[in-house]
Every structure is written in structure tokens, then in C-alpha cells.
């Protein structure tokens, strides 16, 4: 079950701590800020994403790839033209990942791919709440889902709480899908990152399921936001 906590960092404009059954991240968004000279764009805001791994110095290439994916999608969602010559900074720190214990990567080579996908999936959902919290203008909402396809099943990876089970799944393919949500309904695909062996039918199946999960998950997010707004105006009530 996804657990969201908003406004956890009072020092920053917007923040969120997200924990799923198997991972935990904290993200923060600040903006619009004064950018450094090299980040300055004349007609729109620059978006800087920094993801820190759960251990060790970062960002390593693993995180750079994650940053690139997150930044590209945020580019489409944030109303960048509202803040020309400014910077929107997104920071994420991965706190727990199912693969950060010694030896957890071994045994299944797919884990090497699964691990950044799990982290990124959490980062996406968490950064949406952070963006809302920071009051940066958004064009639409989005929800991210991570699905794994095994021989006979489709698995929503965020809901697997047994780490040993997660590490030993024999996935045929993995799909990370970010769907745009408009008027409470999932509409466009913002990001689709699929790896492994799959065919057209798998893809259709995955997209269908992702829509269902997104619909459900968005209700949860909406409730959180409702709570957030009433907390924001608590002194008024």
C-alpha cells in the first residue's frame, strides 16, 4: 500500500515522503528559483532533477538515466513558459530500496534493471505530490505504475511486500508506465519504459492494467491532496 506524507520538509517549497510496500523515497521541489547562468533558458524554466541513491555517492550513471526520464516527463507536465529564466529544482533521495542490502542483487540478473525502475517509480509518484505542494503550475496530473510480467501473471510491483519473493521473480518483461490523468481519468501515456521479452498482446494487456491501477491510485492521491489543502488553510477553519 502506498503511503504518502506531504510537506515533510518545511525548509523547502514542496516535499513528499512516499513509501510503498518495498521502497521509500523522499522528494522535494523548489521553484521558481534564481538559476545559475548555464541553466537559464530565455522562454521557459529550466528543470533540474537530482536523484541520490540510497547508499554511496551519487548520482552515478544509474541515477543519471533516472534523472533524464523524470526531467523529460516533468518538462511536459510543468507549465514551463510561466517561469522564464527561472529554475525548478527537483531533489530526490532514495531511502529504502529492496536491493540495497548486501547480496540482494545476486541470484537474478534482472534485479539490476528492476532496482532502478522501482526507485524511479516511487520518485515519480512522490514528485507529483511535491510539485502540488510547491504550488508550481502543472498542466495535468500523472500517476506512475510499475508492472512485471511473468510467465502467467501480471504483477504490480509496488504492492509486493515480500522482498525475497520480489528478488526471485522470474520476470519476462518489466513495464514502467506514467499516465497522464485528466478529469479523473487516465488519458495519455507520458512515459513507457518496457524491457524484456514481450509482444503486442503483452503491451495492450499492460496498458489496460496500468489504466485501472492509475484510476485507483489517483483516488488515493486525490484524498491526500484534499487533506493537504485543508491543512494549508487550517487557520481559516
Amino acid at each position, binding site marked *: 500500500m502506498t503511503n504518502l506524507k506531504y510537506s515533510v520538509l518545511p525548509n523547502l*517549497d514542496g516535499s513528499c515522503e512516499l513509501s510503498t510496500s518495498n521502497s521509500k523515497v523522499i522528494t522535494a521541489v*523548489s*521553484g*521558481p*528559483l*534564481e538559476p545559475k547562468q548555464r541553466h537559464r533558458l*530565455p522562454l521557459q524554466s529550466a528543470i533540474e532533477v537530482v536523484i541520490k541513491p540510497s547508499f554511496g555517492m551519487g548520482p552515478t550513471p544509474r541515477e543519471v538515466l533516472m534523472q533524464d526520464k523524470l526531467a523529460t516527463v516533468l518538462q511536459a*507536465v510543468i*507549465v514551463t*513558459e*510561466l*517561469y*522564464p*529564466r*527561472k529554475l525548478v529544482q527537483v531533489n530526490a533521495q532514495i531511502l529504502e530500496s529492496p536491493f540495497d542490502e548486501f547480496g540482494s542483487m545476486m541470484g537474478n540478473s534482472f534485479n539490476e534493471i528492476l532496482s532502478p525502475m522501482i526507485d524511479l517509480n516511487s520518485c515519480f509518484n512522490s514528485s507529483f505530490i511535491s510539485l*502540488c505542494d*510547491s*504550488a508550481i*503550475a*502543472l*498542466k*495535468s*496530473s500523472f500517476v506512475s505504475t510499475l508492472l512485471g510480467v511473468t510467465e502467467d501473471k501480471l504483477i504490480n510491483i509496488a504492492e509486493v511486500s515480500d522482498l525475497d519473493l520480489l528478488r526471485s521473480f522470474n520476470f519476462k518483461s518489466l513495464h514502467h508506465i506514467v499516465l*497522464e*490523468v*485528466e*478529469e*479523473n481519468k487516465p488519458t495519455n501515456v507520458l512515459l513507457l519504459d518496457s524491457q524484456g521479452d514481450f509482444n503486442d498482446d503483452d503491451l495492450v494487456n499492460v496498458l489496460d492494467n496500468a489504466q485501472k491501477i492509475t484510476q485507483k491510485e489517483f483516488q488515493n492521491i*486525490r484524498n491526500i*491532496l*484534499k487533506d*493537504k*489543502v*485543508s491543512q*494549508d*488553510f*487550517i*487557520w*481559516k*477553519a
Partner: protein
Amino acid sequence: MSVSENTKNLIVPGDLLTCAKENQTIDILGQGIYLSFENHLYNSNKIYPTNVGIENYTTKNNKNIANIDYNSKRYIPQQGDYVIATVTNNYATHFVCTLNNFSSTVNLPYANFPQATKKNRPKYENGDLVYCRVKVVDSDLPAELECMDSETGNKEGFGLLEAEKGKHTAILNCSLAYCRELLFNDKGFPLLSDMVKKNLSFEVAIGINGSIWISTGSLLETLCVYKILSKCEKAERNLHAQIIEDTIKEYIKE
């Protein structure tokens, strides 16, 4: 207006505005609503809500105004706002000020002071607070502040916020909506008058950029006002009276 009741009207980016659903015309777009210029080209205007908040649709002077009420911490300069700026640097023609830490800096030209001449220019030091108004906002240039009413040339209460002799001052940062409410809605939100009723004597200046400047006669009184204002931001309305009483007891009538 109670907020908790109104969370039914919660608007999330990507939603359709209720007024748009009901085909009501909107003349003025308030905060949190964005008209995409991309679509404007094709006369198929699409109005986006861009922030999470509560939709607010009112009619004023025969104009329909729609906006989304939301709270935030970072101030984006808007023309005509009363702000408290911090001087961070000075140049030959202007002060460089900041309205929020790490936001883009804004300029306060010497010419925007009353009776400004080349020789008579204000001497502010870095780190000083100035109460002023946003004069011009331009997306390509830093916003410009002014320390006078540009029509009359009067001082109008703008200027340096400094501690007078025997006074103790403090500056409090809080959320923008809270500051707006304190400044504009004294009738609906009489927190400051409540405090005065409890025999607290203080002077405040409220900047829309989330800064409240407090000045009182004693250090503890300043701390007391500071504490009340910051505690009330995080407490429900009906608890405010209690907070005022408790804090006064804690700091003043020990």
C-alpha cells in the same frame, strides 16, 4: 467560508473547472488558472487549472472572476503587491533586494524613493528590511520595487523597517495565504485585533511575500507576538484565542 466543507470542490491539475463545466463565462482569470497560448492561436481556448486548491468563482463589477485558492511558500512578484524586501547588495543606481531566499532578485532603484535626487539617496545596508510595493513585473527583467506612491510622490508609509530606540523588532516568515488573510481580511480573520484586545501593544508590517515584521516595546513582548503568529498558522481557528492567552501567560505574566 469554511475550507473543509469546500474541499468537495477540490481542483487538481488536469481537472475541468466547475464553472467551465457549467459553461459560465470567465472574464478575469485569477491565480492558479492558466490559458494556454498555444491554443489561443486556434480560438479553441482551453483553460487549465494549474494548482491544487479550491475553485472560487465570483462576480465583481459585472466581471466574472475565477481563481483557485491555494497556499504556497514562494512568492512570485505581482504588480501592486505590498512586500517586505531584504537588501542584499547596492549598485550605483539601485539596490538589489530579495523577496524570498533563493528566488530571483528584484531591483529597487534610487529613483523610486520620494524626493530622490542624485545626491540625496537612501543609505540602506545589506540585510536591511524595506517595506515597499512592486511597481513593474516583466518576465525578461528583474521586477522593480518602489518606495513611494508614484502618483502622488508621497512616502505612504513605505521605507526602511528599523527598530526605533527602545523597541525590539523581529521578522517572521509564514505562508502566503496566511499573510494575505492577515492583511486584507481583518474582519473575517481578526487575529491581530484579538491580540490587541488582550493588551498586547505592537506594530506590524505585513508583506504579501510571506514576511511579517513585528515591533514592540520589550523583547519578550516581541517574542510573544512572534510565537502567537507562528503558532496560529498551524492551529485551527477556534484554538487561536487559547493560544493567545497561553502564550501571553508564558512570556509576559510569568
